[in-house]
């Protein structure tokens, strides 16, 4: 398959693997965080860790948009879905995410009208098809998916669609990165920067990481050869004494991003005072809300939402996993009380979450006593 196979070329992967080995110092561990859940998934799906030397340790970051949604917001979405005459539309990944009162899938089984869509524009089309119902789109995601929601809000405004709203849960990539970088005892030396987010916000958005925190960043695409090349680029920076933002994903990502997408977000949404992140707690100005001119499409203004803050279960150590302080299997409930079927914590929720990816794809790699084998 063109445009995919060339980025999965085994010979190229082997030569990059050899280059990575040549760039590490025996016995000196370099910890690289891949910020994006898509990267985590690709690393496990292709078994990339086996191509890396022991000195290169991967830390799986917070960039799984499904995982970071707090349970209280899922309960709010369920409350919307259970409102008479309302259809809640969302991405398939969101259906299984547990809130305090179960998941949207369970709410659907109880009779709520929950539908899976592939784009917010599909939800808007649903509103046009079913004028007697109110269609609310449960919007999630980083700057990657926010432009699609923004365009949908703009179109709903143009069309004056009376029966459509957005429950906005879009989040921003910089605040959680800062939260991680501010963590006492941080164990991350370099960052593989997110690819899709960067196609919107550009690579300059990460300059604060080398400039303020002294860690290099390479924005990476998602195929295995891309990831290996990005890791090699990070190591080369260290060897050459550089610390800067580099772009491996040049086929898509520009330094200044996509100005039209950023403008669409800015026109329809604005940062909210603060937002609760699963695993990371409440972070100021870390998420977006619908702007006043689009209030008619803002589910938070249209519906009375419970708005409860539900703490993560005490046994859950997702926060420490997300900041690289422990590996997934070092958490006491990993693979026992917390599994992909019954996730306790955020990292087990989606296949892009660090714990779920490790549970599904990688749990053999560690000694048996460390990595419980799931049911």
């Amino acid at each position, binding site marked *: 398959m063109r445009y995919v196979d060339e980025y999965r070329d085994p010979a190229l992967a082997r030569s990059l693997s050899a280059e990575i080995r040549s760039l590490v110092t025996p016995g000196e561990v370099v910890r690289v965080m891949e910020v994006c859940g898509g990267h985590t998934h690709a690393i496990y799906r292709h*078994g990339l860790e086996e191509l890396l030397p022991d000195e290169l340790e991967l830390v799986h970051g917070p960039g799984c948009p499904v995982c970071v949604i707090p349970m209280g917001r899922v309960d709010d979405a369920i409350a919307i879905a259970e409102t008479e005459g309302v259809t809640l539309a969302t991405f398939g990944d969101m259906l299984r995410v547990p809130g305090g009162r179960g998941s949207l899938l369970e709410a659907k089984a109880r009779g709520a009208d929950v539908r899976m869509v592939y784009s917010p524009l599909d939800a808007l089309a649903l509103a046009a098809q079913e004028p007697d119902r109110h269609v609310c789109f449960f919007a999630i995601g980083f700057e990657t998916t926010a432009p699609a929601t923004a365009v949908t809000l703009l179109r709903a405004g143009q069309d004056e669609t009376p029966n459509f709203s957005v429950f906005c849960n879009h989040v921003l990539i910089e605040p959680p990165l800062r939260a991680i970088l501010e963590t006492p005892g941080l164990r991350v030396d370099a960052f593989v920067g997110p690819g899709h987010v960067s196609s919107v916000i550009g690579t300059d958005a990460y300059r604060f990481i080398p400039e303020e925190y002294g860690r290099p960043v390479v924005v990476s695409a998602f195929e295995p050869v891309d990831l290996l090349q990005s890791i090699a680029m990070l190591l080369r920076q260290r060897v050459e004494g550089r610390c800067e933002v580099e772009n491996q994903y040049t086929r898509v990502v520009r330094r200044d991003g996509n100005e039209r997408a950023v403008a669409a977000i800015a026109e329809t949404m604005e940062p909210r005072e603060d937002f609760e992140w699963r695993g990371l707690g409440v972070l100021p100005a870390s998420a977006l809300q619908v702007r006043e001119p689009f209030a008619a499409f803002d589910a938070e203004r249209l519906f009375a939402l419970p708005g409860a803050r539900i703490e993560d279960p005490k046994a859950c150590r997702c926060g420490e996993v997300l900041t690289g302080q422990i590996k997934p299997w070092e958490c006491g409930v990993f693979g026992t009380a917390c599994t992909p079927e019954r996730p306790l914590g955020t990292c087990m929720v989606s296949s892009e979450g660090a714990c779920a990816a490790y549970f599904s794809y990688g749990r053999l790699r560690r000694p048996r006593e460390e990595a419980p084998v799931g049911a």
Partner: protein
Amino acid sequence: MLRDELVNLSHGAGGKATRDLVEALFLEELGNEALAPLGDSAVVAPADGRLALTTDCYVVRPLVFPGGDIGELAVNGTLNDLAVAGARPLWLTAGFVLEEGLPIELLRSVVRSMAAAAERAGVPVAAGDTKVVERGKADGLYVTTAGVGVLDHDLQLVPGSVRPGDRVLLSGTLADHGMAVMIARGDLHLEGDVESDTAPLHELTAALLGLGEALRWMRDPTRGGLATALNELAAQASLAVRLEESALPVRPPVHAACEILGIDPLYVANEGKLVAVVAADSAVDALAILRAHPLGADAVEIGVIEPEPEGMVLLDTSLGGSRIVDLLVGDPLPRIC
């Protein structure tokens, strides 16, 4: 006479309309000696050997998709469940749940392709039943088929017969059926030249039975795909299955659709593929047998049985890494069969 254009509730009421539907549609399309008396049971001759019994429900949406329809699927699926048990299919039965408002011509075309599939396999639909439910209470048409087959041999084709070192063979490409149905549904806004692989496997399985005890176990990897079938084998046999990613055949348009949707073809349903475990020294012969049949022309060896880790399926990736192929959580592709 059947003058109605749409199925209505009287077609399920047991009266004249029901009789018209049965005689002018089901009997006309499916007619055979066993079905013709329309008794409460079909009475058939005894078979000499162990019997295999199976039943399966079909709720696929849409009812007609590239490469087949629900009728053909319902016949082939049940034939295949008998075939992979090592049985020679003898009889089928069919139950229909019809939604009020279903076009009679659509029902006829489904029953006609069912009849064609049954005839191709030489296995009559010997008994049947029809019910009609109100509009909105079903999605057009659901079919349940059951099958009876006979085992003409004494082989134990069970997970317990599988041994470390045995080879895993696959009769052809992965994920064609599931992706064809997903694309046909239209809500992905994808187009692609992808057809369902629905096909009867009993000739392939019968040919493999010639291997004798070197043939250990067979499955048709339908819902949940190859990954699910092999996980069940690994768990039941308390052995490991190690797959070679580069050996797994996937057609380019299917591969492309899977990549776009983020779906792993290992978990996508097949409806005309056979996975078989054979003794290592019979693998070459078994592949030759499979490849001699049109349905097995693309047959390949995809992996090996290992003693450990018990109950797990592992995949050596094309890049030289490896990973676990776990059981699927949730269902990314609902209602594909």
